[in-house]
């Protein structure tokens, strides 16, 4: 089904990710009477409380008790309901990793998780509330689908699509103040199929989440410098869109990944796995948080500090373009 039929949000391109998903989930409640929303004392911070206001009988605030919340979600799914759980990414993927894995993923249950405040989007809060490990953790759980939407409209699309997607789904968003990259929701969002934001021949930037907007901005600068830059919005980390990655290797031979996550284990690692398994060599760099606990600060300052904002991407592209790499198209001797 076209997701455009299931929800609509006025000024969706101006709303935050969390605001859009709170509204979309409320609208989906009508179509899916089995949705039960759960949170752990973060109804307002995550915006899942909007669903709770509309459907108070199908909303459970467990208090500050994430571990039991994910177990309870498993039990609700076993009873035939469709639990949607929302709390901060750090508590989902780190504190409650075992419940998510063992109670939900091991049993392949129909539980949808919307984890907020991921990456360093809650930069001022310090590393207790940052979460630069969740993509790595969640994509290592068998049966789990991992989605990192680029903005509010894509979050709405992802939430709607997840309702029709079998098994557990982890949707990872920021704190909610990230600027939008899409102007409309009707661009054919499909789980597992990346979106080419702009085509290019010289270099490919593969990004997810807040990295997509930074990549688009960088590409505009690079184009002015005469570099034809492809930008891929890899919103689904698992299952990853292998064909698009391999095509980018063939076409551009230079790839950069951009994510608000540790460069260990996230989008960059997932893309690298595909490239290495393909047997095709290319110049490659991962941008993100460089395997450290982030300094405190406003997110946009931190993205700049860690060089995965547009400026940092442009610099890294410059480095890649200066590398001498084999440019022939005879892959046979390299596979």
């Amino acid at each position, binding site marked *: 089904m076209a997701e455009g039929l299931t929800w609509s949000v006025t000024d969706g391109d101006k709303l935050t990710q969390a605001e859009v998903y709170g509204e979309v989930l409320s609208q989906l409640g009508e179509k899916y009477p089995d949705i039960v929303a759960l949170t752990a004392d973060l109804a307002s911070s995550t915006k899942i409380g909007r669903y709770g206001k509309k459907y108070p009988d199908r909303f459970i605030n467990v208090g500050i008790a994430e571990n039991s919340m994910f177990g309870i979600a498993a039990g609700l799914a*076993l*009873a035939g309901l469709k639990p949607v759980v929302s709390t901060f990414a750090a508590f989902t993927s780190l504190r409650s990793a075992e419940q998510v894995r063992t109670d939900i993923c091991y049993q392949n249950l129909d539980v949808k998780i919307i984890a907020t405040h991921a990456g360093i989007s809650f930069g001022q809060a310090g590393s207790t509330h940052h979460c630069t490990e969740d993509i790595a953790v969640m994509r290592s759980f068998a049966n789990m689908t991992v989605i990192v939407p680029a903005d509010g409209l894509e979050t709405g699309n992802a939430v709607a699509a997840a309702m029709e997607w079998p098994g557990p789904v982890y949707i990872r968003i920021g704190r909610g103040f990230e600027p939008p990259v899409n102007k409309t929701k009707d661009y054919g969002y499909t789980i597992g199929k990346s979106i080419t934001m702009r085509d290019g021949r010289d270099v490919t930037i593969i990004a997810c989440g807040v990295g997509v907007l930074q990549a688009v901005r960088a590409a505009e600068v690079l184009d002015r410098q005469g570099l034809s830059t492809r930008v891929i919005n890899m919103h689904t980390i698992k299952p990853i869109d292998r064909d698009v990655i391999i095509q980018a290797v063939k076409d551009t031979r230079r790839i950069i990944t951009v994510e608000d996550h540790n460069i260990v284990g996230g989008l960059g690692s997932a893309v690298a796995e595909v490239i290495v398994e393909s047997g095709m060599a290319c110049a490659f760099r991962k941008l993100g948080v460089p395997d450290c606990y982030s300094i405190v600060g406003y997110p946009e300052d931190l993205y700049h500090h860690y060089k995965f904002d547009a400026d940092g991407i442009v610099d890294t592209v410059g480095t890649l373009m200066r590398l001498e790499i084999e440019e022939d198209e005879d892959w046979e001797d390299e596979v």
Partner: protein
Amino acid sequence: MALTKEEVRELTKKAWEIRKAIIETTYTCGGSHIGGSLSQTDVLVALYYKYLNVDPARPKWEDRDRFILSKGHGGIGWASVLGDKGYFDKNLLKDFNKTGSPFGMHLDSLKVKGCDASTGSLGHGLAIAVGLALGARLKKKGFRTYCMMGDGELCEGSVWEAAILAGHHKLDNLTAFVDRNGLMIDGPTEKITTLEPIDEKFRAFGWETLTIDGHDFPAIGGAIEKAKVLKGKPFVIICKTVKGKCVDIMENQAPWHYGGLNSDLRDQALACVDNYYAKLLG
């Protein structure tokens, strides 16, 4: 309604069979969590042969009562009951723990019919049971959810998170059991970390409690029937049990949390069980 003498006799005979099956499977599989499987047996037998509204021919029947074995290491004891009930061919238990078998020490709900939830990591089961009980309420279903915990797992904080929420939501369709055999892997619970008073702890969290002899069928039946009619509160039945019950070399011995049996030990264990029940049944 209290169990009749005949029902108690039949349940006792069934517990005899199940304990022997546990010993036989422990012998063939190389090792099992036999101590706790023997301590939990009488409650499981009472549930599956008297109280649970289940149909082994329809393991996914949506109105069935649910049973969650939070102490998932009791899987060999649970599988012995499920096999006997006809959820699957009990001869399959000969492959318990073998490579490729659907049966491992901790049962997998996707592989074992009748297993309502995969468990094994302690402290998880009560939350799943709370979810099922809340789910029954939301779906306007009359099924009841039963959850058996070990006593050692009460150390896990997630048990108490779930207990708080069950009390808050007054889940009177939820009945929990604590298999209070007094031992965890490294020794007596009260030496390692004090759990008592367990009943007062649950009461403080909004539960009704009853402490019984977990090997006494009239007591088990009476407690379950009280729980079924209680309104406005979840109910926990603290079952005082003996780890390794009926096998004298194992009774109250922490090392028999997990162990294997050679043919001599198997024969000795079976003889103990036979002697116990021969005396009990007269």
